[in-house]
């Protein structure tokens, strides 16, 4: 197996080698439009068969894997970004429909072990967070993504600019870190440890994932849109 640990990925590598080296990338595949069962084919072959642009696929995988990697404007503009908005939308769906309900189920069972009022406050903290995340995503889906789609189609709608997005883009991982601290530091000992461990791993994973998601929006999507906005004005 080639050594993936120390360098960015190339399209000639087997997709399975990439996943073996970085198992956490597995959760990205569906969102990028690639189903499991890809056998021993190379990244380029699998991407082509699934209708995914290989350089876009690699860009996202590299960002998820290498914490210090910030793609240059040249890399961003040299990559086919048609898949970006669909990818972000699928990620939202994945967080809202899969990850958050999963965490919620664990928290519900923890709440049942806490006495009444504390359990209630505990759950309402999470519900409040969930609503904030959903509102945050909804704003992007209703304002930002249509704006990008229009720009990519060569239209400029004057009602929205990406600078507005940057001003209002709030942090959605902070409260998750609060939750993490509460769950593993401050729950009373009567709560079952297995339950706590499960949810701690889930929260950590989601928190990491959301950080990368925010990174992709701020360091890839925003520069791209800036460029498109300028290009269409001139």
């Amino acid at each position, binding site marked *: 197996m080639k050594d993936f640990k120390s360098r960015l990925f190339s399209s000639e590598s087997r997709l399975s080698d990439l996943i073996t080296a970085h198992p956490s990338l597995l959760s990205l595949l569906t969102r990028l439009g690639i189903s499991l069962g890809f056998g021993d084919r190379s990244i380029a072959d699998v991407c082509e068969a699934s209708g995914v642009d290989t350089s876009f696929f690699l860009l996202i995988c590299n960002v998820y894997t290498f914490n210090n990697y910030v793609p240059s404007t040249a890399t961003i503009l040299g990559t086919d970004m048609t898949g970006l908005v669909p990818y972000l939308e699928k990620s939202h769906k994945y967080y809202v429909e899969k990850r958050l309900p999963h965490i919620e189920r664990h928290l519900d069972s923890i709440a049942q072990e806490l006495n009444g*009022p504390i359990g209630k406050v*505990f759950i309402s903290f999470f519900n409040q*967070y969930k609503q904030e995340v959903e509102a945050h995503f909804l704003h992007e889906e209703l304002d930002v993504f249509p704006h990008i789609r229009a720009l990519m189609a060569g239209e400029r709608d004057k009602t929205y600019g990406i600078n507005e997005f940057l001003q209002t883009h709030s942090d959605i991982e*902070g409260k998750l870190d609060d939750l993490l601290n509460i769950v593993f530091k401050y729950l009373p000992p009567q709560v079952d440890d297995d339950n706590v461990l499960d949810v701690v791993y889930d929260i950590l994973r989601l928190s990491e994932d959301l950080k990368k998601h925010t990174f992709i929006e701020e360091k890839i999507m925003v520069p791209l849109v800036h460029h498109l906005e300028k290009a269409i004005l001139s």
Partner: protein
Amino acid sequence: MKQRLLIVEPSEVIVEGLKTILESQSRFKLLEPEVSADHIEERIIATHPDVVLINPTLLNKSVSSLRSEYHVAVVALVYQYVEREVLKGYDGVVEIRDGRTVIIETLAQASPVAEQHNQNNYELTKRETAVLIQLAQGKTNKEVAEALNVSIHTVISHRKNITRKTGIKSVAGLTVYAMLNNLIDESALL
């Protein structure tokens, strides 16, 4: 670990003199001195001194409340007549005519609390707990400041320390924390 020392004294001559004596001692870390006690609480919260050396005539707050709220030792710096009763409350008395060795010893021995108080102490102080309780009830920084009779800056400094210690930033998260630690109950929630 060095003892962090905050001098509160308007006279430049006295401050410079103390600095000269104390800087020769590696056991002290001298913080930027204050000329009055007006912002002393903010300074204590922001710089975590172990010992405050202050002229008793400047202090408008009781020594015991400073000590219990911020875990600091308070040493009196005396160069005029001060009633003996007043000096009783202090953790030590430095007289202006004391020699170098006496001054150093008085400050070094001022506080057993000083030894255990450092950045690794994650227990909330009384004051931090009071702020936490107010915040958990949904009050704003301004409302907390009014309720506890301190400045907004003081409240913000306390919040920073609460977050550093608990790892919890949001008010909603602090509310859960307060309930889990039995600091508030359901009826206190607005």
